[in-house]
């Protein structure tokens, strides 16, 4: 096995043990992220339960079809990420670079659509604390929806930006041929992170766009 000598840290027996420990650590980090997003989603659920009519009216400001398209974009980026990990396992350098680049492009498309949706909300004056006006007596309750909307999509977008930056570093290193079938842990762990961010969106999409369409 041709092991890259720089890859193995001295306190591990071999690369396999090192990778095992790294994967375990990544999952522990992801579980803290689950609790982090879980807390925001719980706050959203509670506020929605207390102000159902205002939340329903406010959620109509988001277009479910644009949300569905963006979900599809993110799912495609998860596929290219999974294929990137697959290529790194087999040591295929060029496909790895290609799939990483495709994942970055799809991530940027998602962020661009998100930016379009946000700018739309700024034009509609529904940004709490900046420029907020909402028809009807429940304006304050509707502001709660938009606060959660911007907090949840904003935190998610921040994770996407970090993910794109991480993938950019991977792309350069993959281009230089730093990842081999024996050592490609960074690609795998970044893949876990990217898929996690996808899962967060899989829940945000129905919560923010879909469940109140008919109310």
């Amino acid at each position, binding site marked *: 096995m041709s092991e890259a000598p720089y890859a193995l840290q001295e306190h591990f027996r071999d690369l*396999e043990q090192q990778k*095992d420990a790294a*994967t*375990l650590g990544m*999952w*522990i980090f*992801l*579980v803290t992220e*689950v*609790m982090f997003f*879980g*807390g925001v989603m*719980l706050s959203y*659920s*509670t506020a929605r*339960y*207390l*102000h*159902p*009519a*205002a939340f329903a009216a406010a959620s109509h400001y988001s277009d*479910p*079809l644009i*949300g*569905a398209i963006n*979900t*599809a974009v993110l*799912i*495609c980026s*998860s*596929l290219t*990420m*999974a*294929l990137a990990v*697959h290529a790194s*396992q*087999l040591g295929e350098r060029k496909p790895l670079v290609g799939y990483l680049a495709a994942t970055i492009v799809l991530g940027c498309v998602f962020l661009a659509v998100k930016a379009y949706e946000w700018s739309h909300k700024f034009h509609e004056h529904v940004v709490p604390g900046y420029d907020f006006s909402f028809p009807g*007596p*429940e*304006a*304050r*309750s509707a502001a*709660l929806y938009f606060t959660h909307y911007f907090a949840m999509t904003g935190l998610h977008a921040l994770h996407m930006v970090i993910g794109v930056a991480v993938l950019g570093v991977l792309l350069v290193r993959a281009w230089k041929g730093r990842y081999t079938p*024996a050592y490609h842990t960074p690609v795998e762990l970044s*893949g*876990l992170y990217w*898929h*996690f961010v*996808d*899962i967060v969106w*899989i*829940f945000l*999409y*129905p919560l923010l*766009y*879909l*469940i109140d*369409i*008919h109310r």
Partner: protein
Amino acid sequence: MSETIVPRKNYVLVWAALMVLTFVTWGVALIDLGPFSIVVALLIAFFKAGLVVLIFMHMLYMRRRTQLVLIAGLFWLVILFLTLGDYITRHPLLFCQPLPIP
């Protein structure tokens, strides 16, 4: 190496299922199911998340110890969401008033 290499075909199949489910969840949301629309939307979301975790994130092929981390995390997430029970069991009129306009 104990590493499992998942065939490329499986990734593509999972991707196809996720894409179909995305447009199913959008299509179903256009139909008025009353209180069940949230149930259907969340069931589909959990199913999609399960596919991503098990295949894309290789959880099916992880060591038991790593699988336990996820199970423990989800267990605490359930406890976190039990907070909702506190609100749901109160008298609704106390809480469901719109916030006053300042």
